[in-house]
């Protein structure tokens, strides 16, 4: 007979899991009930499917390929600001998509810095709209993620290997083939697969930079079928396609996706003896500068144009900002209510597939869930009236897989180390949470809450589906301003949104670490 393990929040954890599954399943059933399978998919739908897959492939491949030299350079150089740069690589994760898009427009857009430069030397301007724009934005978001994953893998190479390589006087090329390539071969496919899955459900990027028959993702097609044609049948059919595609890809990718460590702790450079001089050194420097510029220039543009636009922001922006804060805080509350009991249950359960519950939120697209719940709510109430609560709830569901990945391992550690002591003292239920789990997991809970708050604050997805003229979150309001070409007001809104997203993350993360001991 095995060890008698401590059971933590079994009942509430199972209830939370059932609730999550029910919320998603209900949406799915509603969608299926409205889909007329006989009608089939039109040519526009097939083109959306093709585009979705193709842009995901391109985004994944380009992000990963670009990340390799940057990660390599970061792995073997030490310089002032390196730790800050590595931390900044995590920033796109909590950056509102629409803010990044505005920054990319300032740099790569029609009247952007790049085209101004091209114009000066007499070259034709490049367009940021369409496939190239969608991929550019996806690379902006995912190249840093890929860099972090690869850097993490680089740092798992034992220092002894590099010492041996230095001892043997291997050339950089030989070091790459003998030491680094075997590691890359293991980590690169999983990294690319993760980015591929993330880009499959891309909505806000396609909404702002894509569109039209040649650059519409499935997610965007659902939105258009819903919003413009109110064709629930087509929205439902596309939702099913999206679920099959993204869910299937997520399940397949699960086998090769590397563990995502979202936290810090990657600023410890290994002692390296190779490639300290000459061409390698100059190349690394150039790569790091280029990578940092690609990341920082759009952000800089947001700040600069935002400062100018702040004075021009209409009253509606401030109202939307207040709404967004409310939605984000509710989302955090919902997330913690679901994630904490779930994490307790998963961590104390005997292994098994219970972790898959959290992944359900990842494979089901927000717009699919939104469409389903619209269909369910519509007969009994005004769906637009519940736009904000639904947004907060769906945002929490989207953040759940990340939150579980953050919370479960340390919870398992805490129970492994102190579980027996808690048992001898008869600690269970609330006292167990109050005196053992919450204090031990403060930092991770703060981090997960901050992440959820930032994701929810910047989310432009389900709210676009549900909102009417009276209700808007800040990202939606900003999108509306961009749509009506009030670019200065939009820039001001972008700066406010950026500050709110980073602010809510910083606040929760800091609260988790504040006075943290042992």
């Amino acid at each position, binding site marked *: *007979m095995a060890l008698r393990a401590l059971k933590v929040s079994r009942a509430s954890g199972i209830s939370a899991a059932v609730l999550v599954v029910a919320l998603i399943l209900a949406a799915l059933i509603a969608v299926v009930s409205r889909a007329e399978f006989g009608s089939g998919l039109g040519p526009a739908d097939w083109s959306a499917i093709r585009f979705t897959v193709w842009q995901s492939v391109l985004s994944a491949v380009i992000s990963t390929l670009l990340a390799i030299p940057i990660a390599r350079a970061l792995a073997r150089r030490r310089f002032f600001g390196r730790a800050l740069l590595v931390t900044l690589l995590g920033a796109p994760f909590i950056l509102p998509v629409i803010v990044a898009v505005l920054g990319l427009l300032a740099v790569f857009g029609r009247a952007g810095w790049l085209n101004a430069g091209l114009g000066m030397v007499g070259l034709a301007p490049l367009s940021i709209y369409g496939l190239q724009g969608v991929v550019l934005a996806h690379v902006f978001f995912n190249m840093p993620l890929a860099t972090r994953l690869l850097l993490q893998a680089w740092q798992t190479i034992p220092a002894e290997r590099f010492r041996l390589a230095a001892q043997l006087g291997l050339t950089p090329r030989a070091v790459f083939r003998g030491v680094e390539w075997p590691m890359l071969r293991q980590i690169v496919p999983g990294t690319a697969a993760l980015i591929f899955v993330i880009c499959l459900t891309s909505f806000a990027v396609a909404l702002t930079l894509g569109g039209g028959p040649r650059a519409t993702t499935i997610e965007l097609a659902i939105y258009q079928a819903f919003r413009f044609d109110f064709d629930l049948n087509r929205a439902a059919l596309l939702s099913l396609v999206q679920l099959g595609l993204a869910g299937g890809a997520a399940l397949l990718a699960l086998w090769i996706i590397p563990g995502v460590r979202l936290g810090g702790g990657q600023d410890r450079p290994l002692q390296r003896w190779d490639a300290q001089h000459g061409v390698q050194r100059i190349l690394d420097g150039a790569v790091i500068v280029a990578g940092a510029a690609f990341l920082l220039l759009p952000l800089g543009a947001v700040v600069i144009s935002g400062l100018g636009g702040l004075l021009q922001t209409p009253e509606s922006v401030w109202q939307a900002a207040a709404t967004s804060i409310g939605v984000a805080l509710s989302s955090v509350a919902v997330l913690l209510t679901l994630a904490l009991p779930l994490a307790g249950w998963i961590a104390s359960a005997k292994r098994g597939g219970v972790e898959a519950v959290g992944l359900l939120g990842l494979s089901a697209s927000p717009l699919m869930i939104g469409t389903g719940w619209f269909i369910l709510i519509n007969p009994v109430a005004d769906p637009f009236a519940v736009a904000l609560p639904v947004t907060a709830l769906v945002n929490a569901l989207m953040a759940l897989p990340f939150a579980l990945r953050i919370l479960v391992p340390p919870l398992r550690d805490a129970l492994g180390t102190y579980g027996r002591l808690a048992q*001898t*003292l008869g600690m*269970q239920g609330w006292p167990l949470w109050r005196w053992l789990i919450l*204090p031990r997991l403060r930092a991770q809970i703060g981090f997960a809450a901050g992440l959820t708050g930032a994701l929810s604050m910047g989310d432009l997805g389900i709210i676009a589906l549900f909102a009417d003229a009276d209700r808007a979150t800040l990202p939606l309001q900003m999108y509306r301003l961009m749509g009506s070409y009030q670019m200065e007001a939009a820039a001001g809104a972008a700066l406010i949104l950026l500050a709110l997203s980073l602010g809510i993350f910083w606040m929760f993360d800091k609260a988790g670490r504040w006075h943290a001991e*042992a």
Partner: protein
Amino acid sequence: MLRLENGLIIQGSFRLHADLTIEPHLNYAVIGPSGAGKSTLLSALGGFVALEQGRLSWQGRDITDAAPGARPVTMLFQDNNLFPHLSVLQNVGLGVRPDLRLSAEEKAKVEHALIRVGLGDMASRRPGSLSGGQQSRAALARVLVQARPLVLLDEPFAALGPALRNEMLDLVQALVSETEATLIMVTHAPEDIRRIADEVIFVEGGKAHPPAPAATLMENPPPELRAYLG
């Protein structure tokens, strides 16, 4: 009196038989080679490992399936006997009430226990700022306030130096006699047995032998025990 009748513990390919009676107010030492199952035996008594078969009873009451906290037992492990994020006072207080809602009276009891083990002025400190010996004292203060009839020690002082260890054993002996408890401790050291034990449980070859008086056993050990003691 604690009775373990026909107990069988299975962990993977490891099996341990035990049939023992533990009399009140005596000090028992559990000895035997590494991996023989000394800790496993204590874990079974403490309720962390379930019995595959057999019955465990306390004063005639069946406690075979009782949760660890519901047994008449307090246990100190090799490590992690204190929560590092709580103060010494809170750590000891958990022995009085697991929800730490201490009345003034209960708080006084905890403070009294801290004074008794020599940590009167350390109440607000965290375990991380204490020395190894002071940490052991804090854990023993909790044993004192718990005042359970059985105290199980799974080598909690293994990391301490010899002098400090003897000091702790003396303190343990004093505390169990104050609370009129029964002590069951795992040890590797024959001198511990001479110092503290009345009875010895020898664990070897998949079997926990019934307790035998320490003095006679150490003077005239059976062949397996002689082989172990060297």
